[in-house]
């Protein structure tokens, strides 16, 4: 890092900046360089682990380091005077504020991935439940591979009954654990964001489920059509019986007409009709 800072300084000098301009202090310069390096490392890590998603497992170290570096920039005070501290000169002296933007980007990505969810409280390493889940996940993947290899190539490619049968136990365990984690998570958090598990776990589960349901076609078949039809047609039949019986057996409600006291009350309607016909 020190070399880098040196390099940076040389570059600046070679660019021919006039010496009388306010200059970044050496401490600040080294901080900035460290941040640049850290963010490069984190970006590389994120990019490499984008698919299949392993962000939280692989990059939490980088992220933690970067956070610390940013923190030291924000906290650092230069020794010359208060108006020339590092935080001010690095973070807020220009319109672009690239350091702030970068750090915001990393924070947002981290939050969106919900990585905090599968890390320990102090962010050092994966939490126990996540470890357990990943363990099971690897087991099921091995199981899938194992059974697929064992299958004779001559059989029809869509016949995965072996896999479905043999790996059902592991898969169900994995699925249950995932659902359990999800439920725990939902109970714990209040805001909408924490309703998600961390992206690694979600993605792992997604891959497995897709394999299981789409590729192997192991999901449950549509069953009991006959009893469902029988019960539902029975229930749907009831109202017809009800309405018919009430039509036939219930006494129709009659209204008793009252003749109003009126002048020529009987001829009244006739009058109207004559007038308008």
């Amino acid at each position, binding site marked *: 890092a020190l070399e880098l800072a040196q390099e940076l300084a040389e570059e600046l000098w070679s660019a021919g900046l006039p010496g009388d301009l306010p200059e970044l202090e050496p401490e600040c310069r080294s901080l900035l360089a460290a941040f640049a390096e850290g963010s490069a490392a984190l970006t590389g890590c994120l990019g490499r682990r984008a698919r299949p998603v392993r962000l939280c497992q692989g990059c939490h170290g980088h992220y933690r380091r970067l956070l610390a570096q940013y923190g030291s920039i924000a906290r650092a005070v230069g020794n010359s005077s208060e108006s020339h501290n590092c935080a001010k000169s690095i973070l807020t002296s220009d319109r672009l504020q690239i350091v702030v933007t970068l750090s915001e980007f990393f924070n947002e990505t981290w939050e969106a991935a919900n990585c905090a969810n599968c890390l320990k409280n102090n962010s050092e390493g994966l939490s126990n439940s996540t470890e357990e889940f990943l363990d099971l996940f690897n087991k099921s993947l091995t199981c899938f591979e194992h059974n697929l290899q064992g299958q004779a190539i001559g059989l029809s490619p869509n016949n995965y009954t072996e896999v479905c049968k043999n790996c059902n136990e592991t898969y169900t365990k994995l*699925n249950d654990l995932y659902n359990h984690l999800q439920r725990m998570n*939902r109970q714990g958090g*209040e805001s*909408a964001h924490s*309703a*998600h598990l961390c992206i690694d776990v979600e993605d792992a*589960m*997604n891959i497995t*489920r*897709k394999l*299981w*349901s*789409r590729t192997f076609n192991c*999901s*449950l*078949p*549509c*069953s*009991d059509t006959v*009893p*469902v039809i*029988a*019960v*539902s047609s029975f*229930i*749907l039949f*009831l*109202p017809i019986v*009800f*309405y018919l019986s*009430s*039509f036939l057996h*219930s006494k*129709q*409600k*009659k*209204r*008793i*007409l*009252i*003749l*109003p*006291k*009126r*002048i*020529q009350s009987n001829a*009244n*309607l006739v*009058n*109207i*009709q004559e*007038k*308008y*016909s």
Partner: protein
Amino acid sequence: QLTPSSFLRIGQLSNVDLNEDIHELETELPRQRPNEIPHNEKLLSLKYESLDYDNSENQLFLEEERRINHAAFRTVEIKRWVICAMIGILTGLVACFIDIVVENLAGLKYRVVKDNIDKFTAKGGLSFSLLLWATLNASVVMVGSVIVAFIEPVAAGSGIPQIKCYLNGVKIPHVVRLKTLVIKVCGVILSVVGGLAVGKEGPMIHSGSVIAAGISQGRSTSLKRDFKIFEYFRRDTEKRDFVSAGAAAGVSAAFGAPVGGVLFSLEEGASFWNQFLTWRIFFASMISTFTLNSVLSVYHGNAWDLSSPGLINFGRFDSEKMGYTIQEIPIFIFMGVVGGILGALFNALNYWLTMFRIRYIHRPCLQVVEAMLVAAVTATVGFVMIYCSRDCQPIQGSSVAYPLQLFCADGEYNSMATAFFNTPEKSVVNLFHDPPGSYNPMTLGMFTLMYFFLACWTYGLTVSAGVFIPSLLIGAAWGRLFGISLSYLTKGSIWADPGKYALMGAAAQLGGIVRMTLSLTVIMMEATGNVTYGFPIMLVLMTAKIVGDYFVEGLYDMHIQLQSVPFLHWEAPVTSHSLTAREVMSTPVTCLRRIERVGTVVDILSDTSSNHNGFPVVESNPDTTQVAGLRGLILRSQLIVLLKHKVFVERANLSLVQRRLKLKDFRDAYPRFPPIQSIHVSQDERECMIDLSEFMNPSPYTVPQEASLPRVFKLFRALGLRHLVVVDNRNEVVGMVTRKDLARYRLGKEGLEELSLAQT
């Protein structure tokens, strides 16, 4: 006070001793015309009476006014505001209660059924889940229906027709009682939890009105408690004003639409209006939605967030994402046409169904059975649709409350289940906001079709439930379908988001069914929180109303008519100018003399065949039996109070120290005056005389015989009269025009037609 009042007795007679009653009538009055007919829409029921909106300016009233000074009137004004605030707060709290209880109970039910379905999907035997769902629904609805059918039948339905009638000036028995409120609230909760195709928004209007009527009177006859406050407001006129505030507060709590609430009261309810009242009503509405908002936000754990202003929240409609362009307006208008036609179809089907229900399903136990059957069938239809649907969508986050997997792949849910396996409010919001592609067209089409018939079948059951949400849901479903097919036809060019079409469809469908215009536009606008939608929503509602009115009238008007309520519309039928008061009025009129024998009064009041409520008072002229000049008008209720306090001429002479009757005595008896039977008058007292001149209204409204029907109608309607005396040119009483005399003329298909009076 416990004995039923006179109109109740008549109702019971016709219900219980139907045969005996007919027998009597037939022997007494043998006629050629059959006097017993099946129920139809061209009837006016005698059961309904008018409210007394006209202030009786008798001497007592003048005395009171003289006694109360200017400052006291100011406190009356302050009291009005206080009452409005209380109406708002209580309405909001009731809405919160309904919302929270429904959320929890429905959540519990859906969780139980979901667990059961998940269990049986794996093991087989889904028919048990179906049975469980149907039985749960039916049993919950049974409780809801039993309390309505056996305890308070007036709490059935949405209550909007009843409130509309009340504000029009028709006294619907029991409509603003505390008991009705309790049954209504419980009934709504149970019918929504029971999974019927209903909403909890409509009944809020009724609930708000009951709260308003209750608070403004400062007492409850159901609880038999009198808090001795707000005695000044114990009059029909004052109560009506508060009831319109209550209705507005109800709308405001239901949709989070305070302005819409005020306009609803204006459009649907208040036949009588002034600016100060509007301002007070607005105040009540605002308080109501604010109360609901703050309590619900505390309940949801984010206090001071204030993000749930109404029972239903349409969610945010962003202008950027869901904006519309000018080119889309013709499409929206077309949707209005579709909504009008579908609404008319809905109303026509519901009309036949309601007629059948009135004629054949009138026994409470049958009504309960019917409600249970509908609940079971609703569950069954939902289940079969979910079962048959192959529309699976990936779960995204926690947007789906109860994702049913069934035969979908793991990690996916059945898309039909978001529509059927949910409370209707949530389904509506899902249809508005789920991202494009969440539903496939087949699912939406089937859902619309099924839900249309279910909602139509459900409205008019003996459960308390509203029609707003089902209409919105049907409309949102076909609107979304429309939007999807539109983007499919245009190869997805500009009209990407089907959500706004869902909104327009919902507006069109609701407009086509209830035919509200101004208030509905504002309600929808406020519920979406987007003013730019105002214009297309207005166009859609306008078109829906025009198209719908071409076929049949609105659902609420239709139900009012089917209930044989003497409802007065804004105007008299247009072709009725040649009818005069002489032809319209009832005659001869039972008159009282200014100084009348007590016996005569008692006899007239106890005569069951003429259940008159107002009696013209004529100049006492004991020599002749002829009718003499009109001096005033006295009401049955006033006479009863007079008889009860034995205000006879002879007694006044006997004891000078006797307390003079005050207006307070009349108010204390309001609104349920004891029937004449409960007042004992001895033989001696029958010979006494009673002086009415102090108590009668000395200046009743009158019209000459030659006045045309529209003229009479206008006077009657604008002033909210109950009795209008027809006099000849010597000021002698020749007839009396009441509400039923005017309401029976109606513009039918073949011009002017006349409704007949009937006992129901």
